[in-house]
């Protein structure tokens, strides 16, 4: 009986394929694949149905499905195309088998349903696994990439380094900020570290707490931490929250912070223009003589 069902399907694969293609084509009109060219859609359908039949024939030949799914993932086809296709296959096959048999009682009906499910479900599972595996892979790669960018330390001058922070700070990132900050201060022999929070959208008590801790840790290893880039609205919320940031210097902009960092290391910015003027004056005076 079981072998019979499979035989029916395999022997009449042409009919089933035809029905399946019609079914999938019907689905297409009101859905995602409308932007894909007819030729590509048709050839992919043919390939898909071949994959379904080979997996049916060999009962668990997974390589074909894997390769097919991988190619569709790379092309950016939606997962719903595949699941819809498999569901269409289930419908078509059941209809076909039931249409072929003369006597249909409940037992036979449930047997057919069970058998077709046995064919279809493993394929759906595998397709979904392939897709979600590729998504998880992308997400974890992006997480790593984001982490690399999350706490950069830039040595701008001898003894002065800057850490620009952009985006939301969560506990994981706060830890990374602390580690990078302390490592960087030691590595670059920094006397002054500027933490720039211009790009941090919200400074709540947690973020403030982590910044205070980081600044305190920097102080312990003998350097000075200046908090810069405090926007007016952030300043107001910090005051409203009642957070005490008086333990270390703060400045409105990176520019001002950098100036006071230079002051702390006994340096200053000098305009080169004035020297030119002096030389010009000198030349002028020489000319006059």
């Amino acid at each position, binding site marked *: 009986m079981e072998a019979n069902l499979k035989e029916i399907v395999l022997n009449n694969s042409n009919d089933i394929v035809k029905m399946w293609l019609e079914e999938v084509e019907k689905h297409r009109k009101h859905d995602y694949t409308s932007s894909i060219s007819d030729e590509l859609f048709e050839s992919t359908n043919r390939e898909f149905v071949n994959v379904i039949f080979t997996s049916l024939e060999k009962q668990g030949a997974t390589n074909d499905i894997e390769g097919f799914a991988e190619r569709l993932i790379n092309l950016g086809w939606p997962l719903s195309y595949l699941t819809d296709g498999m569901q269409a296959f289930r419908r078509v096959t059941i209809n076909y088998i039931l249409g072929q048999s003369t006597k249909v009682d409940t037992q036979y009906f449930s047997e057919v349903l069970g058998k077709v499910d046995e064919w279809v479900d493993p394929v759906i599972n595998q397709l979904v696994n392939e897709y979600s595996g590729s998504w998880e892979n992308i997400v974890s790669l992006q997480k790593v990439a984001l982490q690399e960018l999350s706490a950069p330390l830039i040595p701008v001058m001898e003894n002065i380094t800057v850490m620009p922070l952009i985006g939301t700070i969560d506990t994981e990132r706060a830890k990374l900020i602390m580690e990078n900050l302390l490592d960087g201060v030691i590595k670059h022999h920094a006397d002054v570290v500027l933490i720039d929070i211009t790009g941090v959208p*919200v400074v*709540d*008590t947690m973020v*403030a707490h982590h910044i205070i801790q980081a600044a305190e840790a920097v102080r312990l290893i003998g350097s000075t931490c200046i908090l810069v880039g405090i926007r007016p609205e952030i300043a107001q919320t910090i005051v*409203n*929250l009642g957070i005490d940031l008086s333990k270390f210097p703060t400045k409105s902009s990176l520019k001002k912070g950098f100036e006071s960092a230079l002051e702390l290391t006994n340096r200053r910015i000098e305009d080169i223009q004035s020297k030119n003027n002096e030389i010009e004056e000198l030349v002028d005076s020489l000319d006059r003589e």
Partner: protein
Amino acid sequence: MDFQSCVNIKKEWDIVGARQLGRDIAKKIGFGTVDQARIATAISELARNIYLYAGTGKVCFEAIEDINERGLRIVAMDEGPGIRDVSQVMEDGFSTSGGLGAGLPGVKRLMDDFDVISRQGEGTEVRVVKWLR
């Protein structure tokens, strides 16, 4: 009352989702940048309290549009252990988690109306309103 939308808090990143939605709604109502920052910070505090102390919960937003007044109501609710002594947590500098202890009193100062209902073992509900002026 115009619309209501909620964000479930389960992971730390849901806090970001909650405050982004809150900020968008605040912008739509017409709050300025300073008030937007205040609202976002308050949402951040409330959502973080849920994440830290209750584990899961939700933050709901409601735009208030009466004839006289317009504003944003934020309701943060959880079914966590509750607050043992509400007057204690409203003191500046009190924290059970080693934080700054500025969360709830800070939220009260950031917003206009503030209300905490907490039953031990049953959960906590914080309702705050910021009026548009």
